[in-house]
């Protein structure tokens, strides 16, 4: 049996930097398993910080208006956009979901577009007419870009104990195109991911990522740091946010989503999201320059940075402990790193020097052809995805009313998500398939405890 070897592999997560002194408190954890579990701030924030958190939360929840509006702080929607609010794609600060059929609109999912080639900084080359993101909606007087619908095809996996698991795969259909045929292009469907704990991930030192990438790992697991363009620094740096780790920091991730999803400009991305071919879009009124002030961007950043992480539940239950051991033994923990330690965060000191349990390495990995979107993003290839954090996973159903996972929401539960793993995760996935039912249940019980 190869399990003994992988128990040793699980020990890889015990990296030297875990020995560094860390904050003794657990202010970043929230012991709340309610529907609000993803929405609570760090414990111990001062009144000024709480006020800032609330302002950020207000911006996260507020609907953006077509300019001009009496409240200049909330106008500037579009001209092209996907939804009216941030919360639309990240309900309850949690996970969106894919449409369940072709007649259902994308409420919390979007489609990235690009064509062959790279932009001047090595990123994806936006579609010349439709831009980098397919915006279904538009303000009055501007044509929307059309409709993207999802159709599902189904297949089945039989586990070693005979249990059958149905898998579904999305197929994208574009309709009612507003600016002519799309021609040759690449696309990638993205469901809005959870947004808590992001500050802690930002505070993980780059050296940690480099060290994780450099480690020798069994099973053909590699993992690499994506290298992406930092708009503020004007240089290529490590990427860590976004489903392909294509954003260097929280601030740029927020600014990019504000523009791409809502059409809200910032000092980082000051130009409206219109391509040269979209003339009505280019002539549309704006909501100021930029539409999201730096102070507002800072409030949003503070909010995301200080959304606490749900503490684990039932961690000492025998079945959960068995599942936790299996998680390491099967090789899952090679990428879904159970523990990391944050470094010093200059602007948000509460994030500094904390031992966190995100179950990610923030690296991009080849996940196989089954999950491939065929759309490179900086160094991340068409088969590569960033290891998503698993913290809070067990509360997804409670918070969002569904258990759907993976970048395009194809997996309807954790087991389906595991079965879609390929590439570097193929060996771990195959071990899960071979598990006896009781051990599989233990693994799932552990994942529910996160």
């Amino acid at each position, binding site marked *: 049996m190869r399990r003994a070897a992988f128990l040793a592999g699980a020990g890889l997560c015990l990296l030297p930097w875990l020995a560094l002194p860390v904050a003794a408190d657990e202010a970043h954890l929230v012991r709340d398993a309610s529907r609000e579990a993803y929405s609570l701030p760090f414990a111990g924030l001062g009144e000024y910080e709480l006020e800032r958190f609330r302002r950020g939360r207000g911006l996260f929840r507020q609907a953006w*208006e077509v300019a001009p509006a009496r409240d200049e702080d909330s106008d500037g929607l579009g001209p092209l956009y996907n939804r*009216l609010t941030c919360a639309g794609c990240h309900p309850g600060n949690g996970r969106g979901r894919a449409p369940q059929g072709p007649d259902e609109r994308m*409420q919390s999912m979007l489609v990235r577009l690009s064509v062959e080639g790279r932009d001047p900084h090595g990123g994806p080359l936006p579609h010349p007419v439709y831009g980098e993101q397919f915006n279904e909606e538009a303000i009055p007087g501007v044509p929307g870009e059309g409709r993207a619908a999802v159709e599902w095809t189904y297949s089945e996996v039989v586990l070693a104990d005979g249990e059958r698991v149905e898998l579904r795969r999305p197929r994208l259909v574009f309709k009612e195109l507003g600016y002519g045929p799309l021609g040759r292009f690449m696309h990638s469907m993205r469901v809005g991911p959870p947004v808590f704990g992001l500050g802690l991930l930002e505070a993980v030192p780059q050296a940690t990522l480099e060290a994780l990438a450099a480690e020798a790992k069994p099973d053909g697991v590699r993992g690499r740091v994506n290298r992406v363009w930092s708009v503020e620094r004007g240089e290529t740096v490590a990427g860590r946010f976004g489903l392909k780790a294509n954003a260097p920091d929280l601030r740029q991730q927020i600014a990019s989503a504000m523009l791409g999803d809502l059409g809200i400009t910032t000092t980082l991305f000051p130009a409206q999201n219109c391509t040269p071919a979209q003339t009505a879009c280019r002539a549309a009124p704006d909501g100021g320059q930029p539409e999201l002030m730096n102070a507002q961007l800072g409030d949003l950043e503070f909010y995301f940075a200080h959304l606490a992480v749900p503490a684990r539940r039932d961690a000492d239950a025998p079945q959960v402990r068995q599942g936790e051991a299996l998680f390491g033994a099967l090789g899952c923990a090679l990428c879904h790193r159970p523990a990391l330690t944050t470094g010093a965060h200059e602007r948000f000191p509460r994030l500094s020097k904390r031992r966190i349990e995100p179950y990610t390495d923030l690296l991009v990995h080849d996940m196989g052809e089954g999950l491939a979107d065929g759309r490179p993003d900086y160094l991340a290839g068409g088969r590569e995805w960033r290891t998503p954090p698993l913290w809070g996973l067990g509360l997804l159903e409670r918070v969002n009313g569904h258990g759907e996972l993976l970048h395009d929401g194809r997996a309807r539960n954790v087991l389906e998500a595991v*079965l879609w793993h*390929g590439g570097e995760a193929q060996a771990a996935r195959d071990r899960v398939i071979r598990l006896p039912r009781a051990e599989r249940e233990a693994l799932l019980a552990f994942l529910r405890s996160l």
Partner: protein
Amino acid sequence: MGVATPDVLPGRRRVLAALGGGALLCGLAPLARAQAAPSPVVVLTSYPEEMMSRFEAAFERAHPQYRLQLRWRRPSDALTDLLKPGQDGVDVYWAASPRTFERLKETKALQTLGIDLSGLPAKLGGTRISDVDGLFVATELAGYGYVYAPAELARLGVPVPQDWRDLADPRLAGRIALPDPSRVGFAPVLVDIVLQAYGWEAGWALWSEIAGLSTLIRSGGGRVAEEVGPGRAAIGLSIDFFVAAAIAGGAPLRFAYPLHGGINPAHVALTAGAPNPAGGRAFAAFLLSEEGQRLLAAEDIRKLPVRPSVYATLPAGYHDPFAAAAAGGYAYDNEAGRARLTLVATLFAQMFIQGEQGHERYVALWSRIHAAERAGRDLRQIRALLGTPPLSERAAADPALLALFRERFEGESAELERIEVGWQWEAVKAWGEAERRLAALGA
């Protein structure tokens, strides 16, 4: 749903076959299809995301021939849009802003909804909830009351308030979260419920004391419930859905409806120039249908349906305002109060708040009053100084004055500022006199 052919061979080969087949599909270019597009129904609203997205999904599922285009506007901007020629292409206005609907009706910006309204009462208690001419129809209700933390009230030895007078309890000093009526949208009605329930003079006197016991919530109605909890407020004045959603989400709070209750209806209306009147009517009918009304009970919405028959299908304990009204609650007359809401909110701000430092001063005053009363002093005259409004109910009903305040809803005016400064001055004089008299009493 397609199902793969049965396979008796468990294990990896079967898995690879399934995933490999799928991978091929993934490599195909997405399809671009031309087919008849659903016709757009443009809805102007000021609802939060949870409400918009639930109704959007459900309506489009029920009526695939239509596509909802939601546009978000605060009521004052919505009014501007809907008074423009062409009404900005909007078919439907859907919001909780009775004053805006009244203005739209006055300016003939609406057309008769023209849908079946059977099973939908036009009144609830003392309040007409739907327009008498059928130009706008209630879609949901929100009730006013108290959010409280049972453990905190117990710690203070204060029973759960049954009515507004119970809030004037010195043991609640600093532990009542009060939304600032000049800043929080739902709060002006709160003020007016008390004024109608107890009368103009007694109502202001009661508010004077409650305001002196309160901490202010200056923005965001949802903040009231957040302020209630250990070490913070024991009770807050709120509208029910903010709290019901928090309780449904697991917050250790309760909500109580007072004996003198009040409700705020939201409405739907079809614009006079609706480009898609059939679609607009379909949307309005959906909102009012059994299915649409049941959506209001979703955990993250928790509003009160206007279709009484729906309550039988809702979770146990769900507040039924129709039953409460039948038992004598909800005598509050929204229509009578609507014209003066901005006026009473402004008056409240000047009498009891006057900015952050002003309110601190006011709270300190009441703290001294309560301390002196505990020592046996009779301070009725000082109470009267603080609780007497600078104008009578009759003066407050002056149509010219109300017209000025109605315009404030749509913008500022110099005349209004002059009036407001006058009220401010009257209040400052009263506060100063109260302080002087307290000092003279050694209190």
